[in-house]
């Protein structure tokens, strides 16, 4: 079992993924027009405003996990320079994603609360910003939503490439989608998990808490979410089976997950709250058109908790190749 990366990187991988996924959901609501279907859209509001702070928090955790870089922070700037390293790609993606998502969130707040716009507009000490108020708010917001979603896909995928790029050193992390397809599984799994946790946060949790079950307003949402959960289940199954087929320490990792030291985390903290429970809840909502406060919040919390433990599980179950 690898011991170099523990909880801090796991939380970071989770926050980065969930932030990216939430922004993608908000951008999808923006571009599909669901954002404007009703006067107030908590999904778009949370999906636009939360990713910036989430990713900032994750980045701070990453910096805190550094050795010399924490004590001598100027060393962090060296991390922008070596482009063969996936970590350098990540540093660039985070550096671009954070300001874009913060601006997108700020514009979404201005759009959702005219009072905030009015307040800022009438401050004497902000008079120099007058030229900004002439910009078309929604079109500007849409530009940042577009750039933000491209960066969000990058953030969600790179966290997976970061792990798979270690190659033969930790065979479980570099497991392929299927033994004969030369695409690493982790980036694909992390992207789908990011979208699922993003929906859990912005739809199941935020919308249910703010205005009641979102599914009653956008009929296709439970189906889309069920599709994500289904695809994620399929990918997780393919990961474990491919690892078992590959043998060696990858198979050992898979065995520890299915029925070994990590089995409790896997079945009780990931599969049950993040896959089975939300799938049943959303199937119920899609079939009967009903979704209660408890089931919405329950599936949202379950998906978010499972997303966190999934990152932790994949980190701790990485076993170095035998020599």
């Amino acid at each position, binding site marked *: 079992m690898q011991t170099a990366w523990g909880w801090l990187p796991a939380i970071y991988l989770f926050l980065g993924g969930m932030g990216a996924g939430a922004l993608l959901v908000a951008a999808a609501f923006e571009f599909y027009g669901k954002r404007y279907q009703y006067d107030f859209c908590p999904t778009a509001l949370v999906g636009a405003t939360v990713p910036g702070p989430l990713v900032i928090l994750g980045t701070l955790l990453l910096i805190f996990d550094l*050795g010399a870089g924490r004590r001598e922070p100027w060393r962090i700037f060296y991390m922008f320079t070596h482009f*063969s390293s996936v970590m350098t790609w990540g540093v660039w993606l985070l550096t671009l994603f954070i300001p874009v998502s913060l601006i997108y969130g700020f514009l979404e707040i201005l759009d959702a609360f005219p009072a905030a716009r009015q307040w800022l507009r009438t401050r004497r000490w902000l008079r120099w910003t007058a030229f900004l108020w002439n910009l078309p708010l929604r079109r500007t917001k849409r530009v940042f939503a577009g750039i933000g979603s491209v960066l969000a896909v990058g953030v969600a995928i790179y966290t997976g490439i970061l792990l798979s790029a270690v190659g033969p050193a930790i065979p479980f992390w570099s497991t392929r989608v299927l033994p004969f397809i030369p695409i690493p599984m982790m980036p694909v799994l992390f992207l789908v998990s990011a979208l699922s946790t993003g929906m859990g946060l912005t739809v199941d949790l935020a919308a249910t808490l703010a205005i009641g079950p979102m599914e009653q307003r956008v009929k296709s949402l439970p189906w889309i979410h069920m599709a994500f959960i289904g695809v994620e289940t399929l990918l997780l199954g393919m990961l474990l089976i491919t690892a078992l087929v590959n043998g060696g320490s990858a198979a050992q990792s898979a065995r520890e997950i299915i029925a070994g030291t990590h089995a409790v985390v896997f079945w009780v903290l990931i599969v049950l709250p993040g896959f089975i429970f939300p799938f049943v809840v959303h199937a119920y909502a899609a079939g009967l058109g009903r979704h209660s406060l408890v089931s919405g919040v329950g599936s949202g919390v379950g998906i978010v908790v499972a997303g966190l433990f999934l990152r932790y599980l994949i980190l701790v179950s990485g076993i170095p*190749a035998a020599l």
Partner: protein
Amino acid sequence: MEIPRLSRRRFLGLTAAAGVAAVLGVPLLKREASLAQERPKARYALIIDTTKCTGCGACIEACRLRNHLPEGVSYIRRIVKGNERNPRFLMIQCQHCANPPCATVCPTHATYRREDGVVLIDERLCVGCKYCMQACPYQARIFDEERGVADKCWLCLPWVLGGGLPACVEACIPGARLFGRADDPQSEVAQLIASGRAKPLHPEFGTDPSILFYVIAEE
């Protein structure tokens, strides 16, 4: 507000394009690895004869003392193989690969390979992210908690450049460690490598170890 349909299509297109670009990036990394294999071979060679190694650990302790490492920490690690009656000892340290994955994944250029094949860490550049420790298939790196940087065997380079020997070679009691110039065809190490008796450890990792070689008995 009226929602233009083009934006939706552009949104989906951009999202898909980013996804494809990210997936294509992976083979690009691999290609860089294959280019790196054309790097020049190393000038030094250190051969460990596992048929002579008794696993006494003198090399581990000598390495610790020369490099002023704390108690119980060394650049050399012992792996016990074989069975109880016939144990085999595998001493693992940095293999000084010609295609070092630690240098590829390092985000700061801190790990680099010298022209003579020795892989070194510039500790002034290291941020301590530990990515190199994950990427080394030989798990040859340790972490210096005090200074917060990655650390590993540096082939006792100042001693070697001055005509001396690495501490582990000097200390080896059964004479299982051989050190010499691989670019001198008359040297013992060059002949052992040429004869095929001394081989790189786990060449299937694809890192092309260029200084460390092992003589392993055929079982």
